């Protein structure tokens, strides 16, 4: 009885939800793919920021007495 019911349910399902026929891709997705690849590039710090950070570190090492003054003003 259950097997018969399962068979009927399968038939009902097929009638209620038709198979997809419009499965043709209508446009090239490569531009979207490129955009996705660009978005996912690892974050890069510009060279100028690195140079600025290096300069600041060097200045603090050379003149440590400015650190309290700097902290006071921050």
């Amino acid at each position, binding site marked *: 009885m259950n097997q018969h019911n399962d068979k009927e349910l399968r038939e009902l399902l097929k009638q209620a939800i038709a198979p*997809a026929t419009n*499965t043709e891709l209508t446009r090239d997705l490569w531009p979207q793919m490129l955009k996705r690849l660009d978005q996912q590039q690892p974050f890069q710090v510009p060279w100028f920021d690195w140079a600025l950070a290096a300069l600041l570190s060097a200045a603090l090492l050379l003149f440590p007495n400015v650190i309290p003054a700097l902290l006071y003003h921050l």
Partner: protein
Amino acid sequence: MELLERFAAGDLDAFEVLFRQHQKQVYAWIVRIVRDSGIAEDLTVETFWRIYRSRARFDPAGNFGAWAYRIATNAALDHLRKSRRETELPEDLAANPQPDPAVRRETRQRIHQAFSQLPAKYRLVATLALIEDEPYEKIADAAGIPASLVKVRVFRAVRMLRKQLTSMGMEIGARR
């Protein structure tokens, strides 16, 4: 160097060639599962993004198409898991826009509702096996599970559907 070797080494041109060779098949597979062209396009891009990201793990002696199908199936499955409670089953790709007159509108709605409430892994195999008539072997390869497990999941999906429909007051076995 062969195309697949170049791809595995991170060559973007080789990836583009593979993308263009396989995008249609991958899209067609995904759209059968998610049944929405816009979502299928996004998931096709997601699939190739996952492919590109895991290129170092790909064996150039292997079958790129089969690997792509498997990743596409996982991407579609992830989507079904996320969207289970949010969406009803879209119908924009249905072969027959006119519903079968033998099946009443109310019955169709109930079946749709019950089907969309199936857990994602059951909905995946039920869609491919029962609606799209894909062979169990092909579904098994794409889902990365044995064919026997596909059969079990289809069986359970039918049982869950029946239980759900019965709880909605629809008797399977009684005529519509």
